[in-house]
C-alpha cells in the first residue's frame, strides 16, 4: 500500500502569502505537491464556511495564509481573519473535530522559503495524524 499523502486546501491572500508561494515557485524551492491553492484577495475575506466545507469533504488539512500583523494590504483584514479562525477552531474542537488540521500562518511576499517550509511541515504533521476521518463518513 502506498504511503498516505495528505490533501491540503490552502486559502492564500493575494498580496502576501500567494505571492510568497509564487516566489517559492519562481525560486525553484522544492516543497511537497500536496497543497491545492485557492487565491483570495484577503484572508479577512474568507468565510469559515469554506474551511468547514473542505474539512467535511475530507480535506486532511486547511492552510490559511495572510500578511503579517500590521502588514495587511487592507489595513486590518488579517486581524479579522485571526478572530474568525479562533472561533472556528474552538467550534471544531468542541464538536469533535481536530482543530490542528486548520493552520493559520502569516507569510509575506518575500518569504518563499518560509512558505515551502510551512507546507513541508504541515504535510509531515498531517501524515502523523493520518487521514481526516470525514473521508470515510457520509452522514454529514
Amino acid at each position: 500500500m502506498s504511503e498516505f499523502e495528505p490533501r491540503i486546501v490552502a486559502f492564500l491572500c493575494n498580496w502576501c502569502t500567494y505571492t510568497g508561494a509564487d516566489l517559492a515557485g519562481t525560486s525553484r524551492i522544492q516543497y511537497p505537491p500536496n497543497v491545492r491553492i485557492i487565491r483570495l484577495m484577503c484572508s479577512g475575506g474568507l468565510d469559515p464556511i469554506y474551511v468547514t466545507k473542505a474539512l467535511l469533504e475530507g480535506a486532511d488539512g486547511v492552510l490559511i495564509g495572510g500578511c503579517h500583523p500590521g502588514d495587511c494590504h487592507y489595513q486590518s483584514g488579517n486581524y479579522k481573519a485571526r478572530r474568525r479562525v479562533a472561533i472556528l477552531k474552538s467550534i471544531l474542537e468542541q464538536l469533535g473535530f481536530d482543530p490542528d488540521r486548520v493552520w493559520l500562518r502569516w507569510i509575506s511576499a518575500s518569504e518563499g522559503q518560509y512558505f515551502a517550509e510551512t507546507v513541508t511541515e504541515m504535510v509531515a504533521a498531517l501524515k502523523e495524524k493520518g487521514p481526516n476521518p470525514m473521508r470515510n463518513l457520509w452522514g454529514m
Partner: protein
Amino acid sequence: MPLNAVLEVEDNILATLDTFLRGLLEHGVVEYLLVPQATLAGDNVVQTLVHDMSRLQAVNPVAPVLPVNSAKLVSKLTVKGAPRPVGVVLRTCELRALVELVKLQQASLENVTVIVVDCLGTYEVADYAALVAAGCDPTAELLAQVRDGDLHPHGGYSFRAACQMCEYPVPDVADVHGPDIHLGLLGMDGRVLVTVRDDLAEPLGLTPTAIPEGRKTVVEELIRRRAAERDRRFAEFRSRVNDVEGLLAQFSTCIRCHNCMVACPICYCKECIARTTTFDHEPRQYFEWAERKGVVRMPVDTLMFHLTRLNHMATSCVGCGMCTSACPNDIPVSTIFRAVGEKVQAIFDYVPGRSLEEELPLATFREDELTELGEK
C-alpha cells in the same frame, strides 16, 4: 439611576400589570405599545401592536408561551428608527436578542421604551394550547408560585429546555442591558416591583420605595437552580459529542428545513449563504462526489449548514431556544449552540445582551490578542 417603586395588587397580578401598561399609553409615555395578548381562541398569546387603548382586552405579559422571539418584531418596527414613541413588552431573552440586533444595526432603541416583565418560563406553543384546551389557566398556576420562586410546570408537562436552563428570569442582573421599565414578580410579597428610568417616575406617579426584602434570595436561588441545570445539560451534550461520529448522531435526523435559522432572532441576513445559489451544485458534481467517496448523504451540506450558522452567530447566541422549538425532529439545537457559544464568547469575554457599548466580537479586533495564532 433606575428608581424602585411597588404597585399594590388589588384584584390580581395580571390586572395590576394591565393597569400599569395601560397607564403608559394614558400618561403619554408611549403612543404605541407592543404587548402580548391572548388570541380570540385563547390558546395562544401573541404580540400585538396597540394604538387604541380600548383594544387592550386580553393583555398577558407573563403567559408561559413564546411563539416568536419578539426581538425580531422590534426589528421590524425600528430598523429604520421608530417613527413614534413605542413601548415594547419583552422577556429577558428577547431584550438580550434585541441588544444584539441593535448592534447588528437591525433595530434601534431610539423612541423605544423597553419594558421587561419577570419571566416565569414558557411551554412549547402546542403544549400551551393543549393545557388551555384541557381547561387549565397556565398563567394563574405560575403566578401562584412567584412568591417562593419555585416555579414548576403543570403535571405531565415541561417548560422548554431553554427555559429550564435560563439564568435570566429577571433583567436586573449584571450581565443584562438594563430595560427602561422592569416589572418584578419573583420573590415579591404579593405586590409588583417597578424599576424605572428615573425620569419616568414622575409621569407614572411612582413613589420611590426600597426593594422588598426576600426578592433577592428567591431570585438568586432560582438562578442557581437554572445554572445547575444548564451545567448538567452542557456536560451531557459534551459527553455525547466527543468525536465526529457523536456529532453526526446529533444531526442524524436533520432534514435541513432551515426552521432553526428562520426562528433565530440573531440570524437576520436577508441573503443567507445557506439560501443563495452558492452551494447549489452542478448535477455532475454529485456524481463525482459519489464516485470519489463511494457514498454521499443527500441532500448534501446538512452539517455544513449548522457549522456555518455556529461560526456566524455563536458569539451572539442568547440561548432563547427558539431553534429547538422550531425543529420538527426535536434536535436540541439550542443546547448545542449555547454550549458551544459559551466557550466562543469566553474567548472575547463577551456576553450577548449585556451592553450596547461592547462591540460584537466579529466586528472588531485587537492588535495584541490571540498572538499565538498565525505563528509557528
